[in-house]
């Protein structure tokens, strides 16, 4: 409701010039709206970030997405990755005072994976067969079949542990009433503004260091930057690469850019002519100048892909440098493949402005070697129907597809399996080019069947080498994460997957 009494208060506040941060309150501006807080029902980065202020899982990530135990102390897995025994930290309570223990973990996981509750992250819970609680601080999870990356999955916010009391009380309304063990608790949530306040029961001594966080939805890029400049926000994300310069080398702000785990690629439909010929796929890789792409679309903030996986993802292995830019060689390969005059094709992508920019750039690059590209940006719903409306791979109309992916588990499995294995063919998952190589499929499956990190790394190394050889994608770039905050704020960071961590937020003098 509108407060007409506020003007006076606002006047007084401006007269006293009390900056918002004096009391340890942080305002953060994001481009989207928070849609919910029940971690097992979320699939967008902002909602997951908001949920992370309240909710915590057995395992977590640091700002570089390195996995570490959080509510767990340690774990053991059997050799074929079907039974995981997890030892919990003791003496923790939820923010509503309910004790955190093995029973609470079981109650939460069983609720989130119950198909009757229709939650959106069911598939992450799908590998679980049963959950047992041998004692108060031990949880034993048995899987239906071997699943090597299970601990990485547990670090996904979907496995955050909800207070059993909240589950009993709110059930289906947990999205608006999440209660966890996290550093903050939900205070208020009105349209575009969500506020969380310090959890007095928080278990890590000395944390959190600020009293509250306010998350605001500010869709316009320019306005977000203005908020930072006007002192209305202390942290903004994302900063679009085209506007980053205005914040760089500034005495009042830190512009932070670091590698993401986004992979930008063009998937080629390998079931269709001419993309069924590996020479054509190689030619297209040679035809694109990735340095120029980085400059034109991402203002230089990013790295060239030198494998199907971006370098920040667990399981990544370099293929010895990015694909060289060599248009002459591209033309030669096209001629060898029987297309001396090139061919015509269609490039699909979403309708975001950066995607359009990238697609037009690719059109120009491919045009230079004789491949005439028609660019077709698709509205989200149209895209879904074109990609997932396909029941048989041969019937897909896809030719070229410009995509971006970040594996929300931080593990190679969640990129290779949905994007580059037979298990990922639409409508099941997101392998829009229908690439499948028995060797890669076997590697992906092999890595699923063990929890041994070294063995898994070997499988993924082998898979990446094969994918690079088969060139089912035009391997493009991995753009940087760009965010900005005021100089005296620290401890709020964006992870390489685009989620924000706020646990260590603090103001320095």
């Amino acid at each position, binding site marked *: *409701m*509108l*407060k*007409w009494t*506020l*003007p006076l*208060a*606002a006047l007084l506040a*401006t007269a006293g010039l009390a900056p918002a941060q004096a009391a340890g309150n942080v305002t953060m*501006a994001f481009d989207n*709206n928070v*849609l*919910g807080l029940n971690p097992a*029902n979320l*699939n*967008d980065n902002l909602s997951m970030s908001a949920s992370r202020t309240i909710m915590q899982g057995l395992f977590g990530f640091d700002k570089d997405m390195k996995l570490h135990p959080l509510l767990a102390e340690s774990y053991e897995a059997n050799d074929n990755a079907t039974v995981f025994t997890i030892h919990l930290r003791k003496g923790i309570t939820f923010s509503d005072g309910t004790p955190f223990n093995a029973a609470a973990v079981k109650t939460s996981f069983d609720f989130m994976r119950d*198909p009757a509750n*229709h*939650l*959106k*992250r*069911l*598939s992450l819970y*799908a590998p679980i067969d049963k959950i047992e609680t041998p004692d108060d601080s031990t949880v034993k999870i048995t899987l239906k079949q071997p699943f090597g990356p299970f601990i990485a999955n547990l670090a996904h916010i979907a496995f955050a542990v909800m207070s059993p009391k909240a589950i009993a009380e709110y059930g*289906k*309304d947990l*999205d*608006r009433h999440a209660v966890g063990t996290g550093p903050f608790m939900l205070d208020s949530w*009105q*349209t*575009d*503004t969500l506020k969380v306040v310090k959890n007095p029961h928080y278990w890590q001594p000395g944390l959190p260091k600020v009293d509250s966080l306010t998350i*605001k*939805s*500010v*869709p*316009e890029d*320019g*306005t977000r930057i*203005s*908020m930072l400049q*006007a*002192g*209305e926000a202390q942290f903004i994300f994302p900063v679009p690469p085209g506007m980053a310069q205005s914040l760089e080398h500034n005495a009042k702000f830190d512009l932070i850019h670091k590698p993401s785990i986004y992979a930008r690629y063009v998937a080629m439909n390998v079931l269709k002519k001419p993309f069924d010929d590996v020479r054509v796929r190689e030619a297209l890789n040679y035809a694109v100048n990735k340095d120029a792409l980085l400059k034109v679309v991402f203002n230089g903030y990013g790295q060239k892909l030198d494998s199907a996986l971006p370098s920040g993802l667990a399981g990544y292995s370099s293929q010895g440098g990015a694909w060289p830019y060599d248009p002459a060689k591209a033309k030669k390969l096209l001629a060898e493949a029987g297309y001396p005059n090139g061919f015509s094709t269609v490039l699909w992508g979403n309708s975001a402005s950066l995607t359009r920019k990238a697609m037009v750039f690719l059109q120009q690059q491919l045009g230079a070697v004789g491949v005439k590209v028609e660019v077709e940006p698709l*509205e*989200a*719903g*149209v*895209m*879904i*129907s074109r990609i*997932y*409306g396909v029941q048989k791979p041969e019937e897909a109309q896809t030719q070229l597809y410009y995509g971006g992916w970040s594996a*929300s588990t931080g593990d190679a499995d*969640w990129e290779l399996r*949905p994007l580059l294995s037979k298990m990922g063919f639409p*409508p*099941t*998952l*997101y392998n829009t080019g229908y690439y499948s190589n028995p060797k890669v499929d076997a590697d992906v499956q092999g890595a699923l069947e063990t929890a041994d990190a070294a063995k898994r790394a070997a499988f993924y190394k082998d898979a990446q080498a094969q994918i690079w050889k088969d060139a089912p994608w035009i391997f493009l770039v991995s753009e940087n994460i760009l965010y900005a905050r005021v100089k005296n704020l620290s401890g709020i960071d964006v992870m390489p997957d685009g989620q924000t961590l706020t646990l260590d937020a603090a103001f320095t003098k």
Partner: protein
Amino acid sequence: MLTYLLKRLASTIPVLVAVSIFVFGFVHALPGDPARLVAGPDAGPQDIAAVRAEMGLDLPLWEQYGLWLNNAVHLRFGKSIRTQEPVSTVVAQRFMPTLWLTLVSLAWSMTAGIALGVLSGVRRGKWEDQASMVAAISGVSMPSFWLGLLLISLFSVRLGWFPTGGYDSWRSFVMPAFVLGLGVAAVMARFTRSAFIEVSAEDYVRTARMKGAPERRVIWHHTLRNALIPVITLTGLQFGFLLGGSIVVETVFAWPGLGRLLVDSVSLRDYPVIQAEIMLFSTEFVLINLVVDLLYAAVNPEIRLR
């Protein structure tokens, strides 16, 4: 009068039902599986099935409509698929900011627009007229996102007078209401001017002057009052459009209004919210039309309602 009112109100029911069928059909004809959209790109088949069941999309279309209509009649609009909140809450929370912004924008732009229009009409061909019309054309042609960002960088970043956006105090109204009302004021000025000039040529205006009525009375009573009829129609239309929310102004000033809600809902195929919002807009338009008709009678006693 009362019979007229009741008759008009009753006649809105079939209009609204027709709109609801049209909107329902249209929304469901949009390409793309909403369950898939809501579940997100990395969702598995189980997730999508869960969402589909949650949304009630596994029922036949006519059954979905029947359910919706029955609920709507009882003022139950279900839950938003996007945020899980009751649709009535989602829409109500954003209705008030939109309504207030509309009222404030319309109030200043009507006052300014009519005043400028009258000034131009009275001083036709003089510099006041030309200056006003240049201002009006600039007002219409100024892209509002550009003007909005310009104002923010001047008044928020440099001077610190007004917040960049949000919906908090009277200060947060100044810039969005100015930008939103600018186009309306411009159209209003042009409309008033031409209506004023047209009416000035009428016999009764000449008669009023001849019988020695003071010029002020001729302008405000005889001319403007009659010139107001098309202006009222225009105001009604503008009011209806503004109540639909403005995606550009709401985006630039982070205003929690209905325009952005509709765009966000369409892009995620949030059927219940889209439906409720369009029904709200239709109802608003029907009611505004009714009020406009009543106002005609108030302004011009020669118009009788039957």
